């Protein structure tokens, strides 16, 4: 048997920064690396809701990336 335990968590926000010369949407990313692995979706959502209005670009997708280590039990 092997088990996966969570190692790191990252919060990634996609921001819509207009369109480029060809009309393709420009997407900017902001990544927060120091997220607690125990953070809940609610907590992250509330944080994004508070800080997104402080900057100029429209809020796109909000992502959470977790990495796990797999070890034998």
């Amino acid at each position: 048997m092997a088990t996966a335990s969570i190692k790191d968590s990252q919060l990634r926000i996609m921001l819509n920064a207009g369109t480029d010369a060809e009309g393709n949407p420009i997407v900017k990313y902001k990544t927060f690396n120091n997220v607690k692995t125990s953070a809940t979706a609610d907590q992250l959502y509330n944080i994004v809701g508070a800080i997104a209005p402080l900057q100029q670009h429209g809020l796109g997708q909000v992502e959470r990336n977790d990495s796990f280590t797999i070890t034998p039990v």
Partner: protein
Amino acid sequence: MAKTLELKFLNEEGKVVTVSLNDPVEPADQAAVSAAMDTILAQNAFLSSGGELVSKKEARIVERNVTDIPLA
């Protein structure tokens, strides 16, 4: 001229932890910035090597000016 909004907190060790955002809305809405920092503390979802975020320290907008020097 790139501007960055820096939100500075103190962690359990008394060291400064910065959450930064590019392209801030200007002029900065003091109440919104302060409330956002309160939310970050209340949600308690960030962790630094020196522990959790404990209190607000300061917020500032930092501007970086770049002047290219032409090399003859």
